[in-house]
């Protein structure tokens, strides 16, 4: 029982850490642009594909890659996806900055569709086996099994999140991004490089998302062009749950969602006597999403935004 509890806790932490990495991208973009980036889930997918491409270019046999090659591919891949993210913002969202509120969202739907089909054309629609980025050792902890892959994911994810925390709260770039996020017109009046801040967000967000994608693919040993869709939606739920626009909120929301999901998956069949099986896990996440939006749209850590404080923009 205790072993099971420990094992499920570690499972939830692992998944939560990956959700958090993606949720951060949603929340940061929403913070500066008040826009839901539907293409963000695709950054997660691109991360895995770019890393895989780098590995297969570097060494023919991806499965036999060494520690240095894997670390190198990880770092280069997330930076490449970050740059792709900046490029996408320039091409698809920047021209729409003064357009209606929904225009960039529709554009991001187009970006998402293009990226998924683009990868399907280049790499084929079928799922591909993904190499593990960590040596696979299993440890017995008080009767539960914890794998080294999970520990590796937790370490990598937390390192990235601490890096982000430092960047946002302790660096000059962070101050600029926070200023733009608080009020774009005021930041502009103060002579802050708003475009630079937005580019920064579109670099860091996809970078973290890509890291999440690589970790996820190496956790499950598989990647596919459509892997970003559902995970993206879950991470978005996490961002809303924690309070969209809030960086600590996104992390908190991600871990809460992961625990509810893992707990729900374990308990649903027991509580409902097998009427609702584990396959309803996703329904649970979406139900949480809808419930939060209805009951407390500002989320757990988000500030309640009054109607007046939003710069009025037409929806269409």
């Amino acid at each position, binding site marked *: 029982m205790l072993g099971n509890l420990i094992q499920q806790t570690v499972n939830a932490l692992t998944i939560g850490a990956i959700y958090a990495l993606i949720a951060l991208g949603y929340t940061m973009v929403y913070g500066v642009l008040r826009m839901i980036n539907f293409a963000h889930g695709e950054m997660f997918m691109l991360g895995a594909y770019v890393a895989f491409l780098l590995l297969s270019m570097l060494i023919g046999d991806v499965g036999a890659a060494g520690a240095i090659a894997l670390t190198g591919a990880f770092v280069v891949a997330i930076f490449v996806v970050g740059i792709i993210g900046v490029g996408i913002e320039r091409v*698809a969202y920047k021209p729409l900055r003064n357009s209606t509120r929904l225009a960039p969202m529709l554009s991001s739907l*187009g970006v998402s569709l293009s990226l998924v089909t683009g990868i399907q*054309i280049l790499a084929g629609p079928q799922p591909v086996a993904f190499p593990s980025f960590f040596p696979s050792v299993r440890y017995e902890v008080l009767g539960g099994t914890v794998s080294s892959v999970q520990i590796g994911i937790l370490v990598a994810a937390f390192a990235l999140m601490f890096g982000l925390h430092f960047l946002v709260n302790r660096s000059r770039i962070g101050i600029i991004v926070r200023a733009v996020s608080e009020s774009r017109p005021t930041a502009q009046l103060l002579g802050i490089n708003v475009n630079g801040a937005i580019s920064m967000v579109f670099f860091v967000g996809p970078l973290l998302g890509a890291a999440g994608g690589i970790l996820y693919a190496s956790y499950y040993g598989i990647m596919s062009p459509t892997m970003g869709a559902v995970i993206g939606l879950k991470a978005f739920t996490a961002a*809303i749950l924690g309070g969209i626009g809030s960086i600590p909120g996104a992390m908190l929301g991600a871990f809460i969602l992961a625990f509810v999901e893992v707990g729900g998956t374990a308990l649903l069949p027991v509580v409902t006597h097998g009427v609702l099986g584990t*396959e309803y896990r996703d329904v649970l996440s979406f139900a949480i*999403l809808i419930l939060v939006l209805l009951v407390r749209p500002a989320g757990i850590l988000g500030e309640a935004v009054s109607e007046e404080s939003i710069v009025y923009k*037409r*929806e269409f």
Partner: protein
Amino acid sequence: MSVAETLTAARPRSGRTVSFLFLAIAITLIVATPFLPNYYVRVINSLLIYILLGIGLNIVIGYAGLLDLGFVAFYAVGAYSYALLASPQLDLHWPFLLILLVAACLGAATGILLGIPVLRLRGDYLAIVTLGFGEIIRIIINNMDWLTGGPKGIPRLDKASILGIQVARPIDFFWLLLVTVLVVGMLVWRLERSILGKAWAAIREDQDAARGIGINTTNAKLAAFATSATIGSIAGAIFAASQRFVSPESFTLQESVLIVLMIVIGGIGNILGIVAGAAILMLLPEVLREFAEWRILFLGLLMIFLIIVRPAGIVPRSFGPDKLIRRLFGK
């Protein structure tokens, strides 16, 4: 006055030519369809179903200005209504018209069911909740094996018949769909110009001002959701009857996005735009058949391009059916 409006006003002659071209293509297509091979009739049928779906979704997106990304749920409600009431699955074999009525009512009920909780939400939040709603419906259908057959779907649906006349061949469905599209299109167009349509426009332009001048925004929004869902559901029932098979695969998120794409490319809030958007989205893949995989990529890029370059769509809102008629018949 938008740029497009100025342009059309400056060139009445070319506007008239375009209008005649539009009408000529439509008439030729309708007259020629009975002589086309079955394959092409099926393509045209799916075009008509998408036009119907577009007209339905456009009420919520184009008229009331609410981005609904879960429209496919209503389409699924209609399709599964037919599948359950006219197949060996539950051993029910109801007549087609009765099922159409049931599907319309169920659709409206689902629309209101979704509408009530999301009334307070706007813009992006609304998009996400409707998206989640659509996914929930799909997952439930996918997992309720005892009722919906799960991922395998429901096969061997009854052949539809209307008042004793069997509707089974693709060409029969072509006529059925054509009449449905014309009737629904006409009704919705009248609805847009009714007092309710004006209330929707007011909500779209400025919700607070709309409330200020005494519009009951709650009821108007619910009416938009219910009408839109009813049309989606009717389209679903006809779709199921023509395929004689339903499975959850037809009701994915991508389908919802495709219908939104169609409206955006064609022209938000304009029935003529929807026809144009549907034609591009359905016929382009047929023309580009050799480039099978590339066409969706192309559509995605086209969507980004059009939103940036021509946000009002190919046929702007100002060029509605009334303008087409005026262009064609004088003044």
